């Protein structure tokens, strides 16, 4: 839990410093912050939702992206060493937020047609609805938040387990067994290092995927028909 608060504090501090004095001609730090915010704004929100809807849902997408990113990154910071997202609370909360958001977006767009479009896709002969409707119901309203939660959670848990495994093995080989086993220790240390770098990639990727999928769900809900 404390890890999460540290991540939140770091996030708020970084962005507060970055956006405190916005200038037209950006300095180095402001450019960096802008790059981050622009990534969420352009690549996720505006690409999928367009300018208008993108602006509406930008705060929630930005929040999801950076919250996941920062909490993922705590997994490889020495002293914290566990991702804030590797305990089910955060992924679940974010998945619920995403779920509520896309249902809200759909209902707001067309109160009557949203559930009809989601459950009874147009252009399908009616007997097929017997099969399609349960599938749509399950995939849209049950599977989506579950997959969102589990994808992020499992990625982070597995990453954490791998790192724990490698580093404890290194410790074990080098200091407990010693002798020739030190070579194994060097090997596991190297793998641990590689997977630490890999975890950085996964952290960014999972943050991106989470925000992107939320955007996609919103887009599907907002789209008139498909």
């Amino acid at each position, binding site marked *: 839990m*404390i890890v999460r*608060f540290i991540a939140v504090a770091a996030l*708020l501090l970084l962005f507060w410093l970055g*956006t405190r004095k916005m200038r037209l001609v950006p300095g180095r730090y402001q450019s960096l912050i*802008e790059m981050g915010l622009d990534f969420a704004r352009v690549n996720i929100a505006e690409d999928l939702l367009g300018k208008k809807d993108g602006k509406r849902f930008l705060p929630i997408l930005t929040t999801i992206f950076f919250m996941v990113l920062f909490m993922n990154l705590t997994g490889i910071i020495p002293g914290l060493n566990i991702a804030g997202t590797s*305990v*089910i609370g955060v992924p679940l909360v974010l998945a619920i937020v995403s779920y509520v958001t896309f249902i809200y977006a759909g209902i707001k767009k067309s109160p009557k047609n949203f559930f009809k479009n989601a459950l009874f896709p147009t252009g399908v002969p009616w007997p097929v609805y017997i099969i399609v409707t349960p599938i749509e119901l399950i995939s849209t309203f049950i599977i989506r938040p579950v997959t969102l939660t589990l994808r992020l*959670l499992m990625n982070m848990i597995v990453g954490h387990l791998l790192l724990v495994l490698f580093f404890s093995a290194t410790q074990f080989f080098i200091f407990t067994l010693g002798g020739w086993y030190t070579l194994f220790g060097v090997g596991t240390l190297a793998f641990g290092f590689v997977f630490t770098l890999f975890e950085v990639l996964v952290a960014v990727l999972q943050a991106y995927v989470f925000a992107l999928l939320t955007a996609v769900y919103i887009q599907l809900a907002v789209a008139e028909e498909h």
Partner: protein
Amino acid sequence: MLHAVLKAATEGETTNPLLPAPYDIWWSAVCFVIILFFFWRYALPKMQQMLDERGAAIEGNIEKADEAQRQAEAALEQYTAQLAEARVEAGKIRETAREDGKQIVAEARENASAEATRITVSAQAQIEAERQSAIVSLRSEVGTLALDLASGVIGESLKDDAKASSVVDRFLADLEADQAKAAGAK
């Protein structure tokens, strides 16, 4: 702190991670709401405002540059026009000057010739007058001389002036008439 973290972590790993503890959900939600409000109310509006301002600034600069360009073009056009005008004017002035010069030369020539004519005329008049006076004085002198000579020849004074002078005058008149006749015959 680390102990608590590890405990939470191991709990997530070893027990079923699909059964969340209520506090987990609760504090995650708190984190989420804090971050959401931060981005929603603070960071993103600031970013948006800055982007708008930057866009406006860029547009303004482009407009300014366009304006400057237009002004420069207008100035250039004006200068060109003025230059052409100046050239035409210079040509006109040259032409006028040439005309004036011609006129002045012609006038001067005319004046000079008039002056020459006048001088010639006055000189001729003077010469004529001098000639006349010379003739008159010559005539009287010649008369006196002739009389003196004659008186010397005849040995007696021809003091009867009136008679003498009339003789001389007649003689001279005859002489003149002869001369005139000779000139006419010639």
